């Protein structure tokens, strides 16, 4: 039976959609299969409570690759990023630390806490900018295979080596330190204000099962700096209509290029014959034939569930089995009758249009991690909070608000498992902790949605609820992601490709994996 489709994409998350759009743009006949009733995967907007819309999981964007926005002409399909300009960290002494959109205003604010830090800020911002510049090309690079001696790979390695040489020794060494140090140690070399170090290192622990004092977190810090523009603290954006709107715009582009997108079409099996794929089987038994199959699911789902060990080399299977997920974060989404009133900045103010970070000190974050290490959620967790309805009134009924709270740590393997009681206890810990800083919060709550790693896994399919499809730890990056010699979007199964965040460069609403996979597929097609 001949193939009906050039390519079938499993999973309508943002990476799957990006791959679909690029393949369709190149004239391929493409079908996207999404298990849920809506596309987006972890980047979805849903009206959880009547009138209240939530970016249920992923809630901010900063890393979405500009070339993708350009190539797919996303603004034309409704993409509109509204800036989240400030980050305010309430302190336990009733004061606060703020970072504003305007770098000078930020420096003045930091000077309130430490002149030395205010001065260091300029140089630090410059270095981070350079580091981001140094890493960005790597985000757009298909990882070379260091074990292969094929001319193609060797030139790839050479290009990689040259990239570092051209950085010059000083920047290379700075980058090497970022890759290997803990964010706490790294920031200690620059700053003295505890809350400043904590708030910066907080972005280094997001999505990992590590504390700010764990080596390797400084790199993730940079990963979250990548979106930074003109030396401001961290320029995150909020998509008008929620993160679902990003997925919708990519889907729109894909459709315009002729891709077909089918929702409520769960794949149960990837067909493998004589070491090559010939299509997929849906849960309703329907068989769909394609010349190429691309999975945007994480490596566990793709290989251990949809393909199956018996079709794969043992070494590869054991590599995929030991690939680490360890989901560590949760979400609490609140429908509010009134705005939170922060003790440190009472009443209405620009801070409510930005992020509020509950990260008063390095020790606070480290203790939150200690709880998780031994199988409990953090009693006093780290939180990254935004109020989307302040930026995009369409998200909530007039006069009312939605609050999105990203929470760490909530270990997937919580002692006793994620029962309903455990979920509520987790939600209470979050609300209680936040109420310490915004006393009116508790009575302002109309509805509350608590999302645990187990919920993330159940709803989106992300194994162990890891938001990056696998930890971004040193031994799971670049040519090791997801497995040695299979980091180039190909798989041991002929014509089966992977395009999810479980491949280089991984997590965040970046789309880079999806784009690179598409380029690799088109390259192989030639």
């Amino acid at each position, binding site marked *: 039976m001949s193939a009906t489709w050039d390519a079938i994409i499993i999973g309508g998350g943002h990476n799957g959609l990006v791959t679909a759009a690029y393949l369709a743009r190149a004239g391929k006949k493409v079908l996207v299969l999404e298990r849920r009733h809506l596309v987006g995967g972890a980047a979805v907007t849903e009206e959880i409570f009547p009138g209240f819309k939530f970016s249920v999981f992923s809630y901010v964007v900063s890393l979405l690759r500009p070339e993708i926005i350009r190539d797919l002409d996303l603004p034309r399909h409704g993409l509109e990023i509204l800036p989240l300009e400030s980050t305010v960290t309430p302190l336990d002494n009733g004061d606060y630390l703020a970072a504003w959109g305007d770098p000078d205003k930020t420096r003045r604010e930091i000077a309130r806490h430490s002149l030395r830090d205010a001065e260091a800020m300029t140089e630090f911002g410059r270095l981070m900018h350079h580091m981001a510049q140094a890493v960005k090309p790597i985000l757009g690079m298909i990882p070379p295979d260091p074990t292969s001696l094929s001319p193609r790979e060797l030139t790839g390695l050479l290009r990689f080596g040259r990239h570092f040489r051209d950085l010059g*020794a000083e920047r290379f060494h700075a980058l090497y330190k970022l890759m290997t140090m*803990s964010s706490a140690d790294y920031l200690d070399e620059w700053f003295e204000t505890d809350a400043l170090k904590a708030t910066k290192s907080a972005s280094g622990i997001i999505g990992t099962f590590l504390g700010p004092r764990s080596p390797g977190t400084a790199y993730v810090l940079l990963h979250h700096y990548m979106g930074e523009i003109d030396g401001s603290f961290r320029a995150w954006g909020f998509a008008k209509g929620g993160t679902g709107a990003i997925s919708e715009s990519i889907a729109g582009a894909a459709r315009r290029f002729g891709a077909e997108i089918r929702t409520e079409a769960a794949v149960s099996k990837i067909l493998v014959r004589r070491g090559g794929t010939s299509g997929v089987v849906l849960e309703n038994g329907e068989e769909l034939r394609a010349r190429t199959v691309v999975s945007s699911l994480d490596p566990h789902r793709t290989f251990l569930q949809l393909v199956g060990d018996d079709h794969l080399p043992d*070494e590869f299977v054991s590599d995929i089995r030991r690939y680490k997920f360890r989901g560590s974060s949760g979400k609490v989404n609140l429908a509010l009758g009134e705005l939170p009133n922060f003790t440190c900045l009472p009443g209405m103010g620009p801070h409510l249009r930005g992020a509020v970070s509950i990260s008063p000190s390095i020790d606070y974050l480290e203790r939150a991690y200690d709880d998780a290490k031994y199988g409990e959620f953090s009693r006093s967790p780290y939180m990254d909070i935004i109020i989307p309805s302040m930026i995009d009134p369409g998200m909530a009924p007039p006069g009312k608000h939605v609050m999105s709270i990203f929470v760490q740590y909530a270990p997937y393997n919580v002692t006793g498992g994620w029962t309903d009681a455990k979920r509520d206890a987790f939600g209470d810990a979050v609300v209680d902790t936040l109420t310490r800083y915004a006393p009116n919060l508790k009575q302002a709550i109309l509805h509350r949605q608590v999302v645990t790693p187990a919920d993330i896994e159940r709803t989106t399919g992300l194994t162990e609820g890891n938001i990056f499809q696998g930890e971004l730890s040193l*031994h799971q990056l670049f040519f090791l992601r997801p497995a040695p010699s299979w980091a180039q979007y190909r798989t041991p199964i002929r014509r089966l490709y992977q395009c999810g965040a479980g491949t280089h460069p991984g997590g965040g609403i970046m789309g880079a994996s999806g784009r690179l996979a598409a380029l690799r597929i088109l390259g192989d097609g030639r």
Partner: protein
Amino acid sequence: MTRELIIIGGGINGLVTATYLAKAGVKVLLLEARDVLGGLSGSADQMPGYRCEVGGCDVGWLLPDIAAELQLDAAGLELVSPQACVCSPQEGGRALTLWADPARSAEEISRFSPEDAHRWPEFTAQVARFAAVLEAIYAVAPPHVPDPNGADIGTLLKLGLKLRRLGKREMVEFLRVAPMSVAEWLDDWFKSDALKGALAAGGITRIFQGPRGAGTAFVFLHHQVGRPAGAVRGAHYVRGGPGALAAILANVAKGYGADIRTTAPVREIVVRDGKAIGVALETGEHLAAHQVVSSADPRRTFARMVDAGQLDPEFLRAVRNIKCRGAVATVHLAMSELPSFAGVSEEALGGAITIAPSLDYLEHAYDDAKYGAVSRRPYLEARIPTLLDPSLAPAGKHLVTVQLQYAPFHLRPGGWDERARSEVSDLVVETLSAYAPNVRGSVVGRHVTTPKDLEDRYGLTEGHAYHGELTLDQILFMRPVAGWARYRTPIEGLYLCGAGTHPGGGLAGAAGRNAAREMLKERRA
């Protein structure tokens, strides 16, 4: 008169550098602050009748080339590695002992997990292969990265080839494992907590990280360099103790014409116009020299011995940022009898006795230290040198040397006062007694060395015996600081040769040898 070359510090690395240079005909003067040579290897007689050494009795791995090139065997060097590597007593009267012979270890492990026992030979074989790669890397000066020069290309190719010889898969596995946490790595291999704890202890040695910290797998491999294949962790002993090694090196050095002065503490490295021209002693005496080599740790060398005005602020900042967070206290126990652990033979006590029953035990121990406290339930590493050399104690008596981790240098609150130090020795006795009840009653003398003591008495910044932690950001071409990993310094004529340089601590003389070879290359050029 202007001497040709002065070496600061008579530790093993300083002595090795001195010997190599003297052997090559350089006129060397070595200055040691204390009245004995050997640095931490120096003997510390605090308990009458007992001879113990501050740094413990393990000399670390001595690069075979050093013994061969300096003919140390002829000078009386006798290396001893006991059959027992690690003995790890467990709660409930069991103990896990790992032996140099993998088959014998597997037998022991099978009592804890048959599955783990089955994987043991495969694991030790991989460890040996990885350690061999490190050994090759450790015997040369780190190439300039990212922009290697002509000579480096050769070195890099040699090392690259060594790596490739591992085979395609093992090569990538090495690159994958090195930056991992020892906990995650061991979880990939084993089930038994007892086994994982006993092994992970080797991954946190003298580093301010728990077993879940990235890079601790590298630390584990670092300490595997030079172990016979199949033996994991364990001890490198020298007959007569580390002090004996120092004495042997000193004799050989003198034989080659090196001049050695003890009780000659250096106050300052005298620099003029960016060039080292000699040293000033605490006594005020000035000694002129064309070249100066410091085996003191880099932070001490530059932040204390060199006039800051002579240094580029960026370089000085980098040096001040070297992480030297001392975390180990050493407690010597004079004992009237051997500690008796349930079900442990005397032979099993010949190596390291490790109190590290599980990964979580070690992680909890680190948690306390993170917030500035001594671990309530510390990781202990005990050795009994009198089993090898009874002459170290009165007849029938024993010396037990215990290293306690974590005992943070920056102790909160109050710091290292008398109370804190006596609490540490009590903690050691109590912890050991939980596994060997006769310890409590048979201790006849104690001697405590805290990280603070190491800084005050032995000049080790923040009491770090390795002159800087072996974290991923402080090894290879980053040790001691980026751009200066080749034993040279921004000061013309001033060199480093201590554990603060590549390949670091826990290895006897490797840094000293590399430094000497670099300097001799320079002279030939």
